[in-house]
Every structure is written in structure tokens, then in C-alpha cells.
């Protein structure tokens, strides 16, 4: 079976700086693939290449989802989402803060809604076919609001929500585009323990119920180790390790990248203990 996403020899250069250097990996359907690495390792740059915000210098990004095969590096930014079905969230939340929570989820269904409204013609005339389509869109939005416990606040301006709610709303909004691959850029940043625990549940639920692939950039090890099926470690733009959480936890190269060379014999144990944040133990 071909993997959902195949990244081959991805390189992104900004002038003399090589932000991502010859990275290859794959991400499977119904799996959570995490990308970790110290600050400045090139994680977000790689995301931006995947989602069309940057044009990669070299490399091939193949997506083989339900909607067919796509070469992502050849698509325009918005078509990667619309046609290929790659949705993303942002490190610094980018909601439409002045619009209501429900409207945020409606905008995410723009493409379908636009078609249903006959490029606004049917909508202007108020034809029943459009009204039905709108009801369906509200229905989908509502089911997501129920899932993330924001139904009561559906008519609030999105900017008025608490930070954690905004994070979850952004994920729900990305899911409303009905993607085959969901890319999350540090979804747990700024969340407290309870909230990041809820996030774990949400991501696992999305993976199992929707059967889509999830690509995750994360610093919070309790999230990464708890829910990842596979972890890719970047450092200085290069892939230094790839494997299951257990393998990564014990990988000396990873430990070195995060904490530098060990000087004493017992240091790796301390490091391993630090990385070993089993969610079951919490």
C-alpha cells in the first residue's frame, strides 16, 4: 500500500541558508506522524512547503489520498487544500477573530458552499437547493462544535474565546474542509495539562473516526509521546532519526540534539527520564 504522504529529498533554501536539507519520510493514513526538533530545526518551514506557502527548492511531495494522487509542490497554495485535501493550523492561531465561531466553520466549507450557491446566483434568489446545502454545512459545523464543546458559544466572536478554545476551534475549522491530511503546527502550545490532555483525546478521535493522516509539529513531549504512531526528528534542517516513540526516546542522536553532548556517563539516563513522559503515568 502506498503511503498517504511521501516526502522525497525535500530541500528548502533561503539564499545561503538551508532551512530544510534533503529530508525524506512518509506519513500513513489513520496515523499520527510527529515532527519534532529543537527551535529552528526547520519544522515549520517544512510545513509551509507542504501546504504551499513556500515553493520548495528541490524535492517531491506526493499525496495519494482518496481524492487521487497529487504532486503538492506543483499546486497553488489554495488548491493544495481545495483539491488535494491538506488542511493546516498555525503556530500563532489564525482565526477570523471578528467573525462568529460558527462563521469560522462556515468559511472553511467555502468551496462546496460556493458551488451549491451557484456562484451566488442561486443564493441571491434563495433557491431551496442552496438553502439545503447551507443547512448541511451548519449541521457539519454543529457536529464539530458539539465535539469541541463550543456549541453554546457558537455565536460569539471567535476572538472572544479562551485560548484553549481557540486552539480547538482552529482544528475543527481545518477539519471542516474535509481533508485527507491534517497538518497541526504546535497545537498544544500555551495549553495547560488538562487542555493538552483533551487535545490528545481529540487528535486520537480524529485519527480513529475520520481515518485521516495527521502530521504534527509539537514541543510538548506529553502530547508527542502519548499519541504519535511515528516520530521524525529534525535538527538543523536534517532528519536525524525516525521511528516509534519508544525508539526515539532512547535514540542518542536525539538526546544529543536536544541537550548537547553528554559529558558524564549517567547523563543519558537523566535525559531519558526527562523525555520519558508517559501519559499513563500522569
Amino acid at each position, binding site marked *: 500500500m502506498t503511503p498517504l504522504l511521501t516526502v522525497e529529498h525535500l530541500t528548502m533554501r533561503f539564499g545561503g541558508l538551508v532551512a530544510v536539507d534533503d529530508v525524506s519520510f512518509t506519513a500513513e493514513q489513520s496515523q499520527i506522524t510527529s515532527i519534532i526538533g529543537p527551535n529552528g530545526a526547520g519544522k515549520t518551514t517544512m510545513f509551509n512547503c507542504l*501546504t504551499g506557502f513556500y515553493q520548495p527548492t528541490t524535492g517531491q511531495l506526493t499525496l495519494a489520498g482518496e481524492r487521487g494522487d497529487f504532486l503538492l509542490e506543483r499546486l*497553488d*497554495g*489554495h488548491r493544495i*487544500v*481545495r483539491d488535494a485535501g491538506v*488542511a493546516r493550523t498555525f503556530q500563532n492561531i489564525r*482565526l*477570523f477573530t471578528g467573525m462568529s465561531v460558527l462563521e469560522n466553520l462556515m468559511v472553511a466549507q467555502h468551496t462546496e458552499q460556493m458551488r451549491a450557491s451557484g456562484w451566488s446566483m442561486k443564493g441571491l434568489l434563495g433557491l431551496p437547493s442552496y438553502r439545503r446545502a447551507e443547512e448541511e454545512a451548519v449541521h457539519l*459545523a454543529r457536529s464539530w462544535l458539539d465535539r469541541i464543546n463550543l456549541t453554546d458559544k457558537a455565536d460569539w466572536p471567535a476572538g472572544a474565546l479562551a485560548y484553549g478554545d481557540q486552539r480547538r476551534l482552529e482544528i475543527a475549522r481545518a477539519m471542516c474542509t474535509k481533508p485527507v491530511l491534517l497538518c497541526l503546527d504546535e497545537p498544544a502550545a500555551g495549553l495547560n495539562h488538562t487542555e493538552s490532555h483533551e487535545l490528545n483525546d481529540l487528535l486520537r478521535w480524529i485519527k480513529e473516526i475520520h481515518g485521516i493522516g495527521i502530521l504534527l509539529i509539537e514541543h510538548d513531549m506529553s502530547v508527542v509521546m502519548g499519541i504519535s504512531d511515528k516520530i521524525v526528528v529534525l535538527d538543523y534542517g536534517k532528519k536525524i532519526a525516525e521511528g516509534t516513540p519508544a525508539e526515539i526516546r532512547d535514540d542518542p542522536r536525539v538526546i544529543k540534539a536536544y541537550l548537547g553532548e553528554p559529558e558524564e556517563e549517567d547523563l543519558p539516563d537523566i535525559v531519558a527520564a526527562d523525555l520519558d513522559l508517559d501519559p499513563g503515568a500522569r
Partner: protein
Amino acid sequence: MTGLLAGLDGGKLLRHVLGAVLITFLMTSLIVGLELVATQTGLSLRPRYHIVLYCVVVVALGSAAVFALVERSWRLPMLVGVVLAALLLVPLLTGNLDSDLAFLLPFPVAPLNWLALFLPAFILMRAGQLAYASARPPAAAARRRELSRTGKLISMGLGLLLILAAFAFPVSPWGSRQLVDILTIVLIYIMLGWGLNIVVGLAGLLDLGYVAFYAVGAYSYALLSEYFGWSFWVCLPLAGLFAASFGIVLGFPVLRLRGDYLAIVTLGFGEIIRVVLINWYEFTGGPDGIGGIPRPSFFGLPFQANAPKGGGETFASFFGLSFDPYHRIAFLYYVILVLALFTNWFTIRIRKLPIGRAWEALREDEIACRALGLNPTNVKLAAFGIGAMFAGFAGSFFAARQGFISPESFVFIESAVILSIVVLGGLGSQLGIVFSAAILIGLPEFFRELEDYRMLAFGLVMVLIMIWKPTGLVSHRDPTIRLHPRGDGR
């Protein structure tokens, strides 16, 4: 008196009223407090103290009423409404006030005049009170629900009343040639404001060259009627179409820019169109303009004193009326009223469609839009094209009303005025644009006799509004779709 002021902070009220009085004094001294008179030695300015005093008293009372409304007291506003009406009424009836304001009371008998003043004053006060009550609901949820519903009914009722009043105005006793003419101009700007609101208010694209599309619409009609003899009603949709295509053609290269850069380039395009109109002498008549543009007809019946050359009837002869130029003016008023209402209907409706939501989303965050699969270029082009279309409609009406157009009418200051109408009204607000167009266009037209001083006052009004209401006169935003009905307590 103590019962009247119950629950009000006296010192705060005093400061509030004093501030309003000071500003009114400064403004009215310039706008209406000076009269231009011709003496033997030439023109001179004569102060009109009594009008200034009168305005100060009215505003002092009004600001006290508004303050009381905000502070959720209702006895004072009611009383003030009645006093205000009496203040207006008594001097007018006794003939002590300048006859300039006499048009307010056109009825032949006193009781009707009394009604004409008290009734609107009472309705406005009551509506204001209820609107405030629903905007800031008290704690009890049940009461809140009830009030929100009344609040919504009232705002809907007020809107309907406004539309009915607008339709009835030319045939009411108030309808004079001058007033209907001024209102026609105001309505053109309201329509332009509503059109530009789509581009600036909804889609967030700062367009400083909007008047270019207005010009395209006006010249479309003028040229089509000059070269082919087509009538206004055929050219109106065509003018909108041409303007929309211009919007899209200009939009393509321009819309990849953002913010200030977009503003500068649209400004440039606006000027290019004007310069082309001036210099393409053989086609557009250059600075001489185009004259003799035919007026719109009423289902083929022209508004003329005598029957057209080829025989046939005029509006007056067909309906057995004697010819009166007021018919034509009133008809033009109705045409632009219907056009403007169509614009309003269209905007309100399209805002609730996917494209409308996409515009607002684009205004908020273009990057997030792209990450949701929206094509920013198409969304922007749609806004640009539709906005331009309404400018085209308004332009062709403008040409038909004036009968003569030249590039002089489409200078940059027009774009600036339309943009100020949108910004002062509150970006994205339909009702606010009506108010600000009335203030920015209506008032200067009223005080035309003051010549250059009115521009000074115009600037002052703009500065003051921006100080008082930095987000515009009406800056409230309602969601385009609700999950829970309004006033559900959530």
C-alpha cells in the same frame, strides 16, 4: 426634579452636556452662525447669534437625553423630547425663528404642525430607550429575551418607516423642489457608499479610485446614447456591466498588492481613467464633456412640456396633468431610491452567502483564507467587480440626471468623499452609511450659501466624528448566520 434625575451622576451629566455645548458652539458658529450678505462695499459675513444660541440649547438638551438613555434612565429623555419639540415649535409658529426652518412645518393648521413635531420626537425617544434597553439587557434572562425581540422589531420597524417615508416624501407637504433635489444627490452617494462598502467594508480592500467606475458608468450611458441613441433603461445594466468588467480588468494586476500599496495603485488607476477621458477628445469630447444626455422616461413617456417631434405623448399629457418640472425631479428621485434600495438588498443578501463570508474572512486574515482553500484572487475580484458594478449603475443615473458630464465630475476628491462616507458610517454598516451620507452630502448642500466655510465645517465634522466614534457611527456587527436564535441568552 430628584425623581427625574434618579440614578444619574449629576457631575458626569454636567460634564457631558458642557462638552457637547462647547463643541456645538464651535461648530454652529462656523456653519450656521454666519450669514453671507451683500452690502454696498461688497460681500460681508454677518453673525447670527440667535441661531447659535438656539442650536446650543437644543444640543444641550439632546445630549442630556442621550446621556440619560445610556445611563438607563427614561424619564428625562421623554421630557427632553417633548421640550425639544416645543422649542422647535413655538418660535416657528410665532414666526420668531429664521424662516429657513419653516419647511419643517408645512401644514396649514396648527394641530397638524404640532403632531408633525411631537409624534416623531416621541417615537424617536421611545425607540432610543427601547434600543438601549435591548442593547444592554438587564440580568433577568426572560426579560432580556423579550426585550431583544422588541429591540429587533423596533429596528426593523424603523427601517420600514424610513423606507416608507422616503417613498412618500416627494408627495408629502414637505416635498419641495430643492429638498427632493438634495435628497437625490444624497441618495446617489448613499448608493455609491453601499457599493464601495462591499469593497472596503466587507472585503477590506482600500480602494481610492472608486470614482473611476462611477465615471465608466456615466460615460457608458452618455456615449451609448450619443452614438446609438439607446435609452437610459437599456444602458443602465450595460453601464453596470462595463464598470464591472473594468473593475475586473483593473483588479487582475492590482489585487496581488495589499493595504497601502493597493490604495496607491487604485488611486493611480482612478486618475488614469480621468486623464484618458480628458485626452481622448474625438471619442469622449475631452474637457468639453458630453451634453444633451437624454433623461430617463417613464415607460417611454418623456417628461417634457411639449410632445416629442415624432408625435406621441408626454408623461403629463398621458396622465392628464399639467406640465410641471417637479414631476421629472420626483421621478428621478424615485429611480435612484429604487436603485439604492436594490444595492442595499443585494449587499445584505450577498453578505450572508458564502462569497460574503469569504470577503469578511479575507478582510480578517488572508493567509488563513488560503489555508482553507479559498482562492484570494477570485474572492477579491468578485468584490472589486460587484462594487464597480454599483458604481456603474450610479454613474449612469448621474449622467441621466445631470444631462451633461465632463471629467470634472470624477476627480479624486469624489473618491475621497465616498470613502469618508463609508469610514464615518462604520465599515461594513449599511445604516451608518445612510447617516454619514446625509451628514457629509446633505449638510453642505443645505448650507451652500456659506461657500468655502462649509468645507471648513465639513472637515471639522469629520474630525469630531472620528474623535467621538473612531470606529464609525454604527460599528455593530451581526453574524451572518446564527446557531441559536437572537436573544437566547447565549
